[in-house]
């Protein structure tokens, strides 16, 4: 659990997600609107009946990318706080895999920011979903994250000393 300046929250969890707790995390008396996105396991995928899913993540990088999404939406939209939680491991039909809550003084920013957050999460956060069917399992088709423009010859600094 990371709690940077705005009291935002980013988590990867292995048990059920508690939406009410996340909404409490972002709610404040100066706000007037909270928009939430709850993504949960559908019972079918491209016409095949899903049995269950398994999610895995590159955890340190996923949390860093979730914090990056939060930084972007604070910069782009007049929002107050955001909470982003993704569950890992085995998930049954109907269980929440991702939950995002955004608070703001006004609804328009909350809607825009929540949508930007889930859209960007799906394109850039290193999490993978394996779909289990009666006749086998497949890694879900996904999206290849874009590589940001870099200054030639530079390398990201190692986060830990070698």
């Amino acid at each position: 659990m990371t709690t940077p300046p705005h009291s935002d929250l980013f988590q990867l969890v292995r048990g059920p997600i508690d939406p009410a707790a996340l909404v409490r995390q972002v709610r404040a008396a100066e706000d007037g609107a909270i928009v939430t996105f709850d993504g949960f396991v559908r019972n079918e995928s491209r016409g095949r009946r899903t049995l269950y899913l398994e999610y895995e993540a590159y955890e340190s990088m996923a949390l860093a990318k979730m914090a990056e999404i939060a930084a972007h939406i604070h910069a782009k939209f007049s929002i107050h706080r955001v909470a982003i939680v993704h569950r890992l491991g085995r998930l049954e039909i109907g269980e929440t895999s991702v939950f995002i809550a955004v608070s703001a003084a006004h609804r328009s920013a909350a809607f825009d920011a929540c949508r930007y957050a889930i859209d960007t999460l799906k394109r850039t956060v290193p999490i993978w979903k394996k779909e289990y069917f009666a006749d086998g399992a497949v890694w879900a088709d996904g999206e290849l994250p874009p590589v940001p423009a870099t200054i030639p010859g530079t390398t990201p600094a190692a986060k830990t000393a070698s």
Partner: protein
Amino acid sequence: MATVSQSIRVKVLFFGRIKELIGRAEDSADLPAGASIERLFAQYTALHSELAKYRPSLVASCNQEFVEWTTLLHSGDEVAFIPPVSGG
């Protein structure tokens, strides 16, 4: 003074279908100094020829940032070959 052919050691992480193909989640790899991520990937395709066909659908990361395959590595870097992501 650095010697001419100093070698570096990097940490390599595998996820999803790539982890299944390689058969492990994590590795430690030795490379000549100044090697790129592309060069590191080639070391794995030499051992796991089926890996080559995934190259167009992978993006490289170094120290938790998506980077170009031409990125040069340094000792202690954490590298991953990231398949298409499917969170959410």
